[in-house]
């Protein structure tokens, strides 16, 4: 009997309203492990080539991992994947909270949602039953309202939800899925895919627990992490415990070195940075800190505001990405408005990164005359206008006026506008760039470019963190990193280190484990061994990362997304208008060389980025060779 997993994958076809349970064999679990591994397998294997992301044939995959559901720090996460409505390609995203644990306790390792319901529904998944229930009364409701109504009508205290808000219903292309109330499965527009299926929520509950191969080892590692995370040299958990992300020291230092994206990446320092830090949030509006299930790191801010805008403490406080995307990136230093916009993103189910970048794009278009007050219903959509930023959040969510355009994401919005608007669209493959400046963290910029889903700040090494020997870098050496190098280095050695970090992150996303809890790769391999009884090694973790990345690339190639899209916006190759980066951006020749080197190191063709047959066979995905392009794709 397999240990650590339920051994069951739930399939729900919303068109035919049929429910089926697959029981993959243990070899499948060993090969793909969970989370991102499952997502990459099922997307490539089952999503037909060329369909629209909103076609009922698209599949929405909620995947757990061997760690999910354990009462361990960092263990309560899931990975969700689908064909992305932003990129038209591979997409996956992870979230925390409590929902992932509830889904595991319902007794499933993954839920694959297929088809489209003929009216709004939600899905109940418990250890007793699986039901498709009417959600007509929930359509139009916020995430908070949705959770409260579902909990009341199911009458179970242990019920946990993953839900969309109005943004997902309205097919805003960067709508997200909210685990519980404040934990976003944020990136890639997966909430819009859920909305396209008329699926408002999944409600999960149960009391099932997997049999573990070595429960004493799990208890021992849990105790070590809970007692020692604050002093663990691999991460920064102590500071996360104190203030979450976005601390003043980090943001003000970032402001000094050009790592404070502002004015839509046009200026990379911001006068008002000190007003919008985590410290400022907690001093002004904080009422405490909270945790995901069973996690002592407790990195989530709880905030409350009564005026000028009310913010309900149940809806969560802003993380670093939200603070900057809705703040400096839009030229806004009004902390109350940023905190309110963050709450709206959680209530409406919007990815706060893509939301802020899309508004910043709109502001730059407005300031350059591409949009005018005739387009914005009279709103002066200028950088720094906090009220306009908030109004635009509402307009995007409900696709009103210019919001209907910006709800398409920056890539499509720029294409529709023309007149040079593409110069202001800060995305990779349609996914908006996170709040980590690729001109400062140039190796991370490489990962933004080559990652299958587009610009993802959780997919590579943040170069500024690894410029000298440290326990953190020593840890990455165990995955193949070379030596510490300057943040703007793009040498072959840096590429090798970024590859190592990329694979580490994909392993984490498959386990599925939080990046903020400082588990080492050896400890995570030990956890997999203790859960499953397998002789799992770090070598297998590296191979898994390669497998996930390669399947994501194959998915994109099948959709016509080629190496030409493995790039950054032109803006990143030039200077900012002011700030530390005004002397210049990324060297395009060095960047192109780094992309080609990354391909070669991954076992992909250096010119086309197409995975080689040998690498696919080595990774145990020879079954996908027949799907390789017959001829090299034209960049």
């Amino acid at each position, binding site marked *: 009997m397999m240990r650590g997993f339920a051994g069951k994958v739930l399939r729900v076809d919303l068109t035919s309203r049929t429910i089926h349970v697959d029981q993959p064999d243990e070899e499948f679990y060993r090969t793909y492990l969970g989370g991102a591994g499952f997502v990459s397998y099922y997307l490539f294997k089952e999503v037909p080539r060329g369909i629209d992301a909103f076609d009922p044939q698209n599949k929405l995959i909620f995947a757990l991992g061997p760690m999910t559901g354990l009462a361990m720090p960092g263990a309560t996460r899931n990975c969700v994947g689908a064909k992305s409505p932003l990129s038209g390609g591979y997409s996956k995203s992870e979230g925390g909270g409590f929902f992932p644990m509830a889904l595991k306790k319902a007794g499933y390792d993954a839920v694959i949602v297929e088809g489209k319901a003929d009216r709004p529904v939600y899905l109940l998944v418990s250890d007793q039953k699986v039901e498709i229930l009417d959600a007509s009364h929930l359509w139009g409701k916020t995430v908070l309202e949705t959770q409260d109504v579902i909990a009341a009508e199911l009458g179970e205290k242990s019920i946990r939800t993953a839900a969309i808000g109005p943004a997902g219903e309205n097919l805003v292309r960067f709508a997200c899925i909210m685990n519980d109330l404040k934990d976003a499965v944020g990136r890639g527009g997966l909430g819009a895919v859920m909305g396209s299926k008329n699926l408002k929520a999944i409600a999960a509950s149960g009391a099932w627990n997997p049999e573990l191969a070595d429960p004493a080892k799990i208890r021992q590692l849990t105790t070590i992490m809970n007692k020692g995370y604050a002093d663990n040299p691999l991460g920064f958990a*102590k500071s996360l415990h104190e203030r979450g992300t976005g601390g003043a020291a980090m943001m003000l230092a970032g402001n*000094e070195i050009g790592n404070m994206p502002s004015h839509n990446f046009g200026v990379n320092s911001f006068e008002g940075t000190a007003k919008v830090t985590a410290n400022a949030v907690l001093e002004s509006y904080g009422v405490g800190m909270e945790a995901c299930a069973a996690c002592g790191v407790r990195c989530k801010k709880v905030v409350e505001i009564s005026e000028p805008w009310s913010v309900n403490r149940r809806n969560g406080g802003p993380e670093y990405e939200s603070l900057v995307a809705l703040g400096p990136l839009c030229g806004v230093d009004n902390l109350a408005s940023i905190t309110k916009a963050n709450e709206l993103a959680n209530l409406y189910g919007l990815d706060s990164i893509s939301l802020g970048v899309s508004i910043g794009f709109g502001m730059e278009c407005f300031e350059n005359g591409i949009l005018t007050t005739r387009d914005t219903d009279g709103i002066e959509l200028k950088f720094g206008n906090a009220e306009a930023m908030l109004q635009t959040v509402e307009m995007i969510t409900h696709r009103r006026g210019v919001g209907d355009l910006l709800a398409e994401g920056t890539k499509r919005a720029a294409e529709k506008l023309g007149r040079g608007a593409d110069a202001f669209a800060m995305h990779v493959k349609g996914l908006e760039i996170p709040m980590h400046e690729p001109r400062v963290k140039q190796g991370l910029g490489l990962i933004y470019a080559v990652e299958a889903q587009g610009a993802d700040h959780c997919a590579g090494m943040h170069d500024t963190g690894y410029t000298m020997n440290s326990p953190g870098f020593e840890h990455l050496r165990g995955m193949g990193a070379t030596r510490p190098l300057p943040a703007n280095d793009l040498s072959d050695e840096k590429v090798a280190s970024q590859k190592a970090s990329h694979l580490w992150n994909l392993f984490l996303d498959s386990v599925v484990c939080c990046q903020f809890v400082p588990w080492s790769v050896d400890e995570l391999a030990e956890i997999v061994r203790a859960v499953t009884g397998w002789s799992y090694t770090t070598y297998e973790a590296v191979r898994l990362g390669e497998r996930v990345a390669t399947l994501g690339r194959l998915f994109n190639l099948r959709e016509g997304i080629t190496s030409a899209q493995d790039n950054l916006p032109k803006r990143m190759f030039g200077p900012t208008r002011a700030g530390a980066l005004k002397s210049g951006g990324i060297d395009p020749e060095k960047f192109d060389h780094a992309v080609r080197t990354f391909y070669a190191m991954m076992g992909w063709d250096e010119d086309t980025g197409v995975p080689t047959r040998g690498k696919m066979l080595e990774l145990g995905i020879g079954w996908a060779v027949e799907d390789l392009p017959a001829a090299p794709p034209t960049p």
Partner: protein
Amino acid sequence: MRITIKMMGQLRSLQSEGQSTVVLDLSPGSTVADAIRTAGVPDGEPWNASVAGQLVYAEHPLEEGDSLLVFAPIAGGCKSL
């Protein structure tokens, strides 16, 4: 050679008496690493540093009057500024 060194975040606690900014008197030709060691940061403690908005590394030579900003390579929201 006099330089100003400012510590941010958790590194500030490593500096003598926890002051955020101190002036150091260093011999000509001193590097960033020399300054940070002199300021009380123990060997092996990771840091980032910048001068005039540009990231600088251990062997970067300092000049009279430089203002050196030193901060943690990775940090969340620690209490110290």
